[in-house]
């Protein structure tokens, strides 16, 4: 096993990987940008190296600086997390050439699956159904012709993309040109490549993905599905496992298809095959993510399988001691991504300092987070604060647990989507599992604070007005109860704020 691993990432996924390493007795090396000196991944790692400016291009995308930090620290392997360099085949190649193990699949597998057009060809070759669309990157003119051919609505997607960047849904011909321009521009700034392709948009589609894991000997297992249909701006917000929409027959079929795709590229590592599914359980290959997924915890909760630890073990040469039949699922898990964003203004990010934080905990609660009291959400990176995960024996119980846990969350200093998540947990369609990727668009009422809290808010506001002149003297922490012993009741019923 490795003695030391460098984590080429930040935020909660860096923390997740550092925790896995600590528990395995592996020393950890963090890297950080100017903006991240106070971040939790720096605090929790054994060592930390500064690698450049706050903009990702100057630090977390700076391959040379990261390799340099690995060499300086003596790390034998690099875990890339997700985003940044995780699906960059040339970085995986550089690691190999520097004698450092890249904790992920081969550069070749990344390259093949990283290009969506190649990936579709591979899937097609192993008889996996595909959504009709352009056969590859297209010019502006071709794009509009193909869009007309397959019929609106269509999706425009960045060839090099992922995570919803450079992706646009176009419902009518009139919007096509401007959407194409936006998609290319986003693709260029996110991936340095503005190629896009076009495909049919499936009405009320569900996003279902299969988690797979494979070792160097080619043992390839599927860890069942995740349903990730609740999305905003084409980014997942709520994920769950298992999906309430598929039969065990479909589950098995999807799992076997996923394993077939992985084997086609001699895949070795954890990976995810994403599918789009229509309302009749017909599924089509979307893409493969050749890395750990944001939403991997829900799979861990229902299987008891630690995906991150196994990625590290496989990279270190261990083989999976399980067979497919040893992988069983129990109960239901739900993940809510808590973002520093404002649902009322189309989910605009809300950077700032976490002035006060109280997180939910207790039975069946898992909080994968990188925030703490006093931590800072900068505008340089994804505004995800935490992944709140619940497990219970049924979907209904997991939803109730999530709703209750979200109500315990207190985050002051930045706006969050917690209220929106609470309302979604209470939504009748959501509870019944009637979800698809258009769910949020269809439910604008979930975005606004509910009027239910109006009276309470009014009382709090009135008290704050009445106490304006005393703010300064009241801003200290209350004295210890021990000291207040004698004069307790006066304090307990203080009539003004």
């Amino acid at each position, binding site marked *: 096993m490795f003695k030391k691993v460098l984590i080429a990432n930040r935020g909660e996924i860096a923390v997740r990987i550092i925790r896995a390493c600590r528990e395995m007795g592996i020393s950890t090396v963090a890297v950080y940008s100017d903006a991240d000196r106070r971040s939790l991944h720096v605090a929790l790692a054994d060592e930390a190296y500064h690698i450049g400016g706050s903009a990702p291009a100057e630090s977390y995308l700076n391959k040379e600086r990261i390799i340099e930090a690995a060499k300086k620290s003596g790390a034998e392997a690099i875990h890339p997390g997700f985003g940044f360099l995780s699906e960059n085949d040339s970085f995986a190649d550089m690691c190999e050439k520097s004698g450092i193990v890249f904790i992920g699949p081969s550069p070749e597998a990344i390259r093949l699956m990283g290009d969506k057009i190649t990936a579709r060809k591979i899937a097609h070759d192993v008889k996996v159904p595909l959504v009709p669309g352009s056969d590859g990157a297209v010019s502006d003119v071709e794009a509009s012709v193909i869009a007309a051919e397959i019929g609106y609505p269509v999706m425009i997607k960045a060839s090099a993309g992922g995570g919803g960047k450079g992706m646009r849904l176009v419902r009518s011909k009139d919007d096509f040109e401007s959407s194409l321009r936006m998609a290319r521009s986003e693709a260029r700034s996110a991936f340095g490549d503005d190629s896009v392709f076009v495909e049919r948009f499936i009405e009320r589609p569900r996003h279902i993905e299969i988690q797979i894991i494979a070792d160097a000997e080619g043992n390839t297992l599927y860890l069942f599905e995740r349903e990730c249909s609740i999305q905003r701006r084409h980014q997942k917000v709520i994920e769950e496992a298992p999906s309430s929409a598929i039969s065990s027959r479909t589950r098995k079929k999807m799992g076997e298809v996923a394993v077939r795709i992985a084997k086609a590229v001699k895949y070795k590592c954890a990976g995810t095959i994403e599918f789009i599914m229509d309302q009749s359980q017909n599924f089509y290959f979307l893409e493969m993510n050749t890395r750990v997924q944001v939403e991997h915890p829900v799979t861990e909760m229902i299987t008891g399988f630690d995906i991150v630890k196994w990625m590290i073990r496989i990279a270190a040469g261990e083989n999976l001691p399980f067979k497919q039949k040893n992988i069983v699922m129990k109960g239901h898990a739900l993940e809510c991504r808590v973002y520093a964003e404002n649902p009322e203004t189309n989910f605009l990010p809300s950077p700032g300092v976490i002035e*006060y934080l109280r997180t939910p905990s207790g039975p069946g609660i898992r909080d994968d987070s990188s925030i703490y009291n006093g931590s800072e959400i900068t505008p340089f990176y994804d505004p995800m604060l935490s992944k709140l995960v619940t497990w219970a024996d049924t979907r209904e119980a997991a939803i109730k647990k999530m709703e209750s846990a979200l109500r315990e969350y*207190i985050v002051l200093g930045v706006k969050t989507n917690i209220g929106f998540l609470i309302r979604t947990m209470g939504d009748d369609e959501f509870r019944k599992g009637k979800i698809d990727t258009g769910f949020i668009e269809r439910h604008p009422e979930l975005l606004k604070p509910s009027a239910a809290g109006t009276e309470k808010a009014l009382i709090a*506001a009135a008290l704050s007005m009445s106490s304006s002149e005393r703010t300064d003297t009241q801003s200290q922490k209350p004295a210890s109860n021990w000291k207040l012993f004698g004069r307790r009741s006066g304090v307990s019923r203080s009539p003004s704020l």
Partner: protein
Amino acid sequence: MTYTFKIFDQIYKITLEEEEGQLRVELDGGSYAVDFQKIEDNLYSFLIDGKSSTMGVFRKGKKVQVFLDGDLYELEAVSEREQRKTSHIVSGIQEIKSPMPSRVVKVLKGEGDEVALDEGLIVVEAMKMESELKSPIAGKVKSVMVKEGDAVELGTVLLVVSSE
């Protein structure tokens, strides 16, 4: 003491009074016994007729934000005179402000350009995500304050559009 607030475009009157050492609140015809304790700066535990709530309270002049159950409620103290005003007519001169610290990716309209309601004016990027800001009125671009590549703060005026 009576206060008047606007929230969700509705006007509410609320009265605070002390009665035998107990704070009472009159609101919308109801009367409540209120007990509260400070937890930390801006954070309070309330018992309203025995019902428990923890609320964050942030006041800035006449505006009060209240954090409750994951939501931020925005209230505004209003005077008698303001209560009679109807909501703003969206016309005249409109400033397009940056909704957050961001970078200008593309300026879609120049000075003097005609714009339709909801037509795109400018594209900004923050946290690797692009947003197109649209015109709240039909009219003409009066001035453009920024250029592509500029880093802008929250509230920076980017363009001014006029309906005249």
